[in-house]
């Protein structure tokens, strides 16, 4: 009886030793040499895989940085600090970047925009967009929050009026919300821009006004009043700001009848300010 136990213990031990030897050999022989800098870069990145750099994830971006295919400033989520850290690891000039922010270019919420039907399909913006949506305006915000779902930095919420809000302090400018929006209402802009047309409606004035109280009615007053000639142009019944000409003053917005063009008036909310005084959802 004892003999059986000893034989089995010894044989199992021997098999184990052989296997262990094989594993040690395999580990040495098949070892993959990895540049230690990839690990360092990976640690320096936010590792949220937001996709703002244009690569599928942080690891792939780190590899692209190593190959010299990407610039340290491409990591929009990390900002200047990350860029400096990455440049330190890679031994290159960091360069500087402008902070980008998401801007929601529609103010036609539940209170302003006419609703013409009830939408009962799948509650995502893209699905609703395929049916034309429930608002009479077919260019405006669908209000189902696909942008908020796409945000990985807790920098957005849907407000009581059914419009998305971007938190100034949390937005890293990755652009995930802008990519998620089926109607291209969210755009990425440098944080120092102040002049925005908060409308995407291309309908003629009378119809646009009928369907939404804050639609661009293509009256052309902002175009006339703009201090820089050509700084604002009327394209397909919609005022469009030409940022390359950088209109720097606010005259253009004063006479807007629907207040859809604004100069830095859209309040920049921080996350804490938004949630203070309201129960957390």
């Amino acid at each position, binding site marked *: 009886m004892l003999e059986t136990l000893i034989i089995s213990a010894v044989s199992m031990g021997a098999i184990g030793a052989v296997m262990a030897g094989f594993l040690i050999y395999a580990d040495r022989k098949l070892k993959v040499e990895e540049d230690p800098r990839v690990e360092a870069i990976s640690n320096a990145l936010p590792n949220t895989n937001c996709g703002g750099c244009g690569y599928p994830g942080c690891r792939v971006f780190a590899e692209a940085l190593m190959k010299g295919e990407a610039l340290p400033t491409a990591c929009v989520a990390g900002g200047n600090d990350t860029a400096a850290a990455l440049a330190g690891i890679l031994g290159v000039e960091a360069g500087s970047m402008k902070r980008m922010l998401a801007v929601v270019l529609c103010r036609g919420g539940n209170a302003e925009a006419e609703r013409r039907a009830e939408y009962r*399909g799948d509650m995502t913006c893209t699905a609703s967009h*395929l049916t034309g*949506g429930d608002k009479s305006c077919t260019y405006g915000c669908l209000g189902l929050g696909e942008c908020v779902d796409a945000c990985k930095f807790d920098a957005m919420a849907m407000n009581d009026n059914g419009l998305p809000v971007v938190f100034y302090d949390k937005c890293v400018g990755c652009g995930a919300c802008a990519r998620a929006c089926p109607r291209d209402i969210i755009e990425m802009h440098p944080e120092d821009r102040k002049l925005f047309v908060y409308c995407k409606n291309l309908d*003629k004035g009378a119809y646009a006004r009928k369907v939404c109280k804050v639609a661009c009615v293509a009256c052309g007053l902002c175009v006339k009043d703009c201090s820089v000639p050509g700084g604002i142009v009327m394209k397909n019944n919609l005022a469009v700001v030409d940022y390359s000409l950088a209109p720097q003053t606010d005259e253009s917005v004063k006479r807007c009848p629907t207040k859809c063009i604004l100069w830095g008036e859209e309040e920049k909310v921080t996350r804490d300010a938004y949630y203070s005084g309201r129960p957390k959802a």
Partner: protein
Amino acid sequence: MGHRTFERGIHPSYYKELTSGKRVEPAALPRTVVIPLQQHAGTPCEPLVKKGETVQEGQKIGDVKAFVTAPVHASISGKVKDIELANHPNGYRCASVVIEGDGSLRQWGSDGKVVDIGALQPEAVRQAIREAGIVGLGGAAFPSSVKLSPPKGKAVDTVILNGCECEPYLTADHRTMVEEPEKVVWGLKALMRASGAARGFIGIEENKPDAIDALTRALSGSPEIGITVLEAKYPQGAEKMLISAAVGRKVPPGKLPFDVGVLVNNVGTAVAVFEALNWGKPLIERVVTISGNGVREPKNLRVRVGTLFGEVIDQCGGLVGSEIEVLNGGPMMGNSQSTLAVPVTKGTTGITVISADEIQVRPYEPCIKCGNCVEVCPMGLMPYRLGDYGKLQMTAEISALDGLSCLECGCCSYVCPAKRPLIQWIRVGKLKLRQEARKAQGAK
């Protein structure tokens, strides 16, 4: 049973008795029409008229230099009130020509002469079909002239006329076959002549015996054309299903019917071909079935393109109640409308109005992997997985599972016991996939 058919599919309730016995009536002449410049699959037209211009019924008002397109024509005589963005039944705002009518009517084909088929030149037929703006009237609105111009090396040997009309409620094609069988047959012969095909088939589901009788009579003395009676099953009228049932050929994924030597056209299209070649009448009106329990008096109407849904429904006694769902097309494939101020287009096979007591709203539940959707998918896809991938917008997986082959027939959503909106998700996924492909092409 015992009739030819395809694999899988479903047997929904058809509700065709609401309108199948009703003659097609001409709709009242609309005072104003809104004619979208895109009513077909392909490049949108550019307007050829200006605001304030006087137009005649049948005058070409929009065209573009492109291969896959079809011109649009004024459906009433009158004055161009405006060219502006207007609601389109597909849910977006489309550049449209608004015409205010003067009440005059033009007579088409009053001399009653019919051209001899043997005298037709294939190229001239193709050109006439293009100029008449004829598109497939089965719903997809694919330009018919493009179907008649297969790429070099691809020959068409069989023309199939699609008279299945498998979509519940709709009876427009059924009535067309019963009331105008001679025109259908003439149109089919012209299409065979233009494509060089020697054989012709008319595929009809077994549940339309009067249409089968009418066409059999009209076909006496035409041995090259046969009637294929098919099982009443949905989606029998889908192009690929019809080809496999009628001639036993399978169209490979991503390929078109002419890759297997077949040309499929709707019976309504054949009538439009007859009217274009004999009367010079462009496609300015079509038969529309207005049906469902949400409309007081279901009817088959010959409606001018550009007539608003609201006006058409008013001629059928109006809506019953306010909580209704209005669909452009039938209940399986039609898309729901958020307003009645949308025009009837060339692709409007019907207007289905579902009443409040027929609408079931209930939240969907998790997939229990029962496999019902896989069992019914006529394309042999895996809708439960495509649905999830579409919901999550995972485009690579959708394309790996051949999601673009999906016909959006709706069988999967119909049978799903958890009431998952599979088709809507798959549509989202296909949209994202196409957007990505376009972006990739633009980057190159």
